[in-house]
């Protein structure tokens, strides 16, 4: 079978793109690294019932009809597929069940979603410290919650997960809020734009007031954090207003926003821009989600953070763009079908400037000040290690990588790249955009030599390897 469109990622963007593309007769291959569709936002949605609805809320349950719709279409959907390469010739390398394959298609849509921003504080590598998104994943996939945990950081997800914990009847030791007071004034001019999603703002208010009413301890204006413990987390040391206090807990959930998961788009050599508002890299895209490589599209949070509904809309737009490019629909049909999605996308993005400004993580939480805070988790390099290496006179992350191995471990810089970039910028007094990012190369996921040796190449004339 010849494939028209390969979609990578079965979250809101990938599923919407797959549905839209199939409706117009395209043959779609949908690859996803999870066992079931949904991405992170709708993780394990197919198994969700009444209890999940009560605890996780209607925004989560909205993913269920989407997944059902995706299942009912004639899509070739491969779960547990780990995509390790996308080339500028639109070859996709992936492995599933221990078998590596190389497939090509005239159009590829990357819908790789978001990941949580690194939160490099002292002790963040200790067992028991996890990201708040991880806490939510365990709630979604296994119904698991940790009694007496601490939620620390900033951003809507922190309060969302804390609220879901309370809905589940799970006590929280404390919410430690690192949002800078100064952000509020800067966010004020963005309120008129945000009013288009006033419902979301009032929902945030409701979560906060319910959390307060529950008697949960909330500590505001936090300037510094350290995780306590030697071999596992035993608590969190919190500096609010200049004084330190210790809160004991075995479970600490950190969060300071999400950023596009750009390892695949960088490794595919797509052009990227530094987004100063969202403090992250995003692939350059046109109005149909097309990128610097002809026939390669990026949809959803992988192209910039907009949330689940924006991801669904941009998935449709990317699919329509690629359908027109493939000649499966004409441009008039493309433009008229995209109207609703464009309205949704505009509405969803209207609240971002407000949210991004209000919840902008403080400088000291993006680049730590504790000498022994670990920056690169994989190679176990501290702030001092990285700083000393920069002092040799290094100008960029790639030189730094060669000198001290930062970013060369299994996570391939996912949890140190942004910190290293901003640290170099700070230390050499340059804008972060000029410093650049690690040069990422395929395979972006672990690939066994045995799998590569047994690589199956789908029938095609132009394959080079």
């Amino acid at each position: 079978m010849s494939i028209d469109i390969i979609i990578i990622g079965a979250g809101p963007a990938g599923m919407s793109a797959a549905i839209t593309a199939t409706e117009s007769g395209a043959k779609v291959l949908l690859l996803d690294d999870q066992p079931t569709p949904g991405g992170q936002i709708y993780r394990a949605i197919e198994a969700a019932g009444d209890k999940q609805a009560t605890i996780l809320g209607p925004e989560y349950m909205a993913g269920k009809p989407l997944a059902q719709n995706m299942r009912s279409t004639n899509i070739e959907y491969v779960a547990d597929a780990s995509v390790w390469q996308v080339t500028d010739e639109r070859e996709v390398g992936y492995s599933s069940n221990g078998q590596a394959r190389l497939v090509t298609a005239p159009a590829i849509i990357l819908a790789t979603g978001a990941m949580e921003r690194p939160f490099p504080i002292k002790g963040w590598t200790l067992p028991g410290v996890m990201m708040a998104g991880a806490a939510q994943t365990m709630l979604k996939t296994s119904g698991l919650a940790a009694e007496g945990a601490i939620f620390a950081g900033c951003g809507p997800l922190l309060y969302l997960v804390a609220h879901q914990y309370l809905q589940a009847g799970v006590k929280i030791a404390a919410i430690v809020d690192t949002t800078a007071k100064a952000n509020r004034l800067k966010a004020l001019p963005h309120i008129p734009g945000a009013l288009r999603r006033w419902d979301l703002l009032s929902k945030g208010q409701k979560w906060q007031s319910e959390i307060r009413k529950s008697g949960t301890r909330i500590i505001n204006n936090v300037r510094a954090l350290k995780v306590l413990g030697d071999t596992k987390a035993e608590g969190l040391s919190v500096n609010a207003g200049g004084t330190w206090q210790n809160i004991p807990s075995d479970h600490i959930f950190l969060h300071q926003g999400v950023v596009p998961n750009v390892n695949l788009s960088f490794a595919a050599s797509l052009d990227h821009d530094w987004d100063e508002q969202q403090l992250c890299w995003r692939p350059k895209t046109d109005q149909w989600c097309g990128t610097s490589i002809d026939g390669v599209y990026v949809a959803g949070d992988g192209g910039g953070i907009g949330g689940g509904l924006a991801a669904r809309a941009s998935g449709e737009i990317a699919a329509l763009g690629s359908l027109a490019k493939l000649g499966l629909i004409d441009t008039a049909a493309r433009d008229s079908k995209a109207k609703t999605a464009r309205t949704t996308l505009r509405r969803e993005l209207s609240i971002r400037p407000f949210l991004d400004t209000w919840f902008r993580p403080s400088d000291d939480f993006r680049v730590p000040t504790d000498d022994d805070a670990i920056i690169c988790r994989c190679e176990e390099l501290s702030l001092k290690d990285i700083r000393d290496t920069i002092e040799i006179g290094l100008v960029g992350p790639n030189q730094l990588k060669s000198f001290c191995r930062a970013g060369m471990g299994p996570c391939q810089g996912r949890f140190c790249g942004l910190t290293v970039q901003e640290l170099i910028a700070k230390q050499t007094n340059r804008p972060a955009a000029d410093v650049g990012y690690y040069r990422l190369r395929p395979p972006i996921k672990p690939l066994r030599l045995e799998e590569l040796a047994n690589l199956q190449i789908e029938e095609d004339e132009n394959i080079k390897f």
Partner: protein
Amino acid sequence: MFKRVINDAIADVVFDFEGAKITARSGESVAAALLADDLLSFRQTPVKDLARGPFCMMGVCFDCLMVIDGQPNRQACQVVATSGMKVARQHGAAELNIDQADPA
């Protein structure tokens, strides 16, 4: 510790963790099943021999690496638990054992 606040999935998966029998819910990851059993430390790091456990639960941090069915460097948060599986903590970097490699 972690507790089950939703308990609607069938607990019909039994796997081996270093000699202990662990019960998992159908469809859940090895990492989730072990966290539910109050295991937080999944491996010792290759550089400084320090304890690490699951951190992101979505396959991006690689801190939950374990030896699963004899194969090292498996992401426990990405592997669905199945009955009869043998799971062990990973100590340091994986060793490349050429003799045991499958000649295929």
